[in-house]
């Protein structure tokens, strides 16, 4: 079976030789090709080549159309990206500096005609041609309620959200939602089939239960309505979200969840499993390793954690092993140990 078949089998709960194994190696591609981050991320060819090389070496299942999350701000006019040699590029300057700037903000009429899309499109094209038939291709899409953090900074966004004028806030959210709807359609059309919906504000941890229901949920419905939830993965930037899983499954119809390492995996798994019948028996619990600890874990510690996760996740099927955005500081040996352990403990009878 190909990695793509294995993923589909896991979602459907049909037989497969092992669980799907995702490993998110983004910035590591630059090192792989012996390039600086700036040079690496300048070209879609590089991002595709770096990933394909790492996939051959490590054998994990997935590849990414994502360069770095800050790229989404480029569509709104951000032209200052702060590169680092030891970590992910970051938005270097906010396009919204004061509330007045919100009125000037524009969503491109067609994001695929925007220069920021060109290299992503090249990368996706290469990935589709090389491994599209065999490997899942992931996309990263920031929810309307979280995208303002990239455009104005988290503290200013929280301030606008909590104390600002509702019409201004809603106008900004409306633009972000329009952007999301275009973005998800563009990625789908370009061949991405695992669509990671990044929605940290879709947790009680960020906004509490009341605001989750009155604010986050309606905006998420709006983001997802036109394109539907096919291939959508619920992900909260590694923030825990077990308590919203029932609502997300019932109201948004999303049955694939990327669980925070800070959350109880067993609880997540049973919550999802108990609701699978409402989703035609399809769904997936993605167990996510704490990849910040991977920086210094011994091989024994890494193996023990992978084993623990697989033991919780495997019974009953519908389980995937995954990572966060793997920090560059993780030694390569630890990546190997983790993946070897995932293949070993993730084998199915």
């Amino acid at each position, binding site marked *: 079976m190909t990695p793509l078949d294995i993923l589909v089998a896991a979602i459907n709960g049909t037989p497969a030789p092992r669980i799907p194994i995702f490993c998110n190696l983004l910035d590591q591609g630059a090192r792989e090709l012996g390039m600086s981050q700036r040079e690496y991320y300048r070209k879609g060819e590089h991002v595709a080549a770096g990933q394909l090389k790492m996939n051959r070496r490590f054998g994990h299942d997935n590849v990414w159309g994502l360069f770095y999350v800050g790229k989404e701000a480029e569509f709104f006019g951000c032209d200052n990206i702060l590169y680092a040699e030891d*970590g992910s590029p970051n938005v270097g300057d906010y396009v919204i500096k004061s509330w007045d700037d919100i009125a000037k903000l524009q969503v491109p009429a067609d994001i695929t005609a925007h220069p920021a899309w060109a290299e992503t499109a090249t990368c996706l094209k290469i990935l589709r041609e090389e491994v599209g038939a065999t490997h899942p291709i992931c996309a990263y899409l920031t929810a309307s309620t979280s995208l303002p953090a990239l455009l104005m*900074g988290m503290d200013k966004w929280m301030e606008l959200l909590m104390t600002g004028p509702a019409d201004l806030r809603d106008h900004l959210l409306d633009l972000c939602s329009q952007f999301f709807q275009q973005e998800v359609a563009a990625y789908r059309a370009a061949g991405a089939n695992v669509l990671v919906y990044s929605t940290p504000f879709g947790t009680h941890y960020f906004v509490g239960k009341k605001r989750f229901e009155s604010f986050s949920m309606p905006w998420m419905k709006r983001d997802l309505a036109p394109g539907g939830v096919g291939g959508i993965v619920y992900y909260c930037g590694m923030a825990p979200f077990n308590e919203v899983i029932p609502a997300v499954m019932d109201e948004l119809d999303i049955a694939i969840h990327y669980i925070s390492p800070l959350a109880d995996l067993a609880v997540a798994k049973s919550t999802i499993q108990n609701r699978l019948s409402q989703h035609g028996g399809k769904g997936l619990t993605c167990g996510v390793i704490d990849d*910040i600890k991977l920086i210094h874990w011994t091989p024994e510690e890494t193996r023990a954690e992978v084993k623990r996760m697989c033991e919780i996740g495997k019974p009953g099927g519908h389980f995937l092993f995954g990572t966060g955005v793997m920090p560059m500081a993780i030694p390569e040996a630890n990546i190997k140990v983790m993946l070897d352990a995932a293949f070993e403990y993730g084998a199915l009878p």
Partner: protein
Amino acid sequence: MLDRIIKDYNDAVFETDKDAAFEVVNNALANGLTAEDVVFKVVIPAVEEMMSDITRDPDANLAQHFMTAQIAAEVTEKMLLKFAHPPEIIGRVVIGTAAGDLHSLGKRIVMGCLKALMVEVLDLGVNVPAEKFVAEALNYGADVIAISAMMVHTATGENGARKVRALLKEQGLEDKIKIVVGGAPYRFDNELYKTVGADGWAADGIAAGKMIVDLIRAGKAS
């Protein structure tokens, strides 16, 4: 009367209603409460109580955390202007996010809590070079340099807290100025702060406030 004021203020803060909180404070002043009483008998205990409530409440959240710190800092700043005598300041802190890091929310919450605890804070902004942390700390007479970092590479890299430590050492300032750190990587790995040469870390704003106040007091006592 004081009990009523405290309760109304706490309710307003818990509901993240800034206007209501200010209304309680203004009514209290109109009814003869002094600015000192507002800060020491209402705001500071409220921050502490709120935070412990928030820690206990399963539905506690970041928005509440943010607003509690924000309201407390704003009320305290306004009240300080009305104090009969300048208040006793516990100490001074410069705070910023590490070089290469533009994540601003954690820093803002910590600042709010410090202000409400009578610590003077100078905000150096985001993406602050190590040299600037040290130079500004000297200028400001800071007891503590507080560095917020949300990403592993800005937390543990060569240009963040490690470099600040190296500069303090180089300039013989380690006795005078302490380094504290916080942000996501430290919450994922509670031992991380030691490896970057920090004297302390905290998982949230109120714990940060307490830890920093203790550190300043210990420094002054020795």
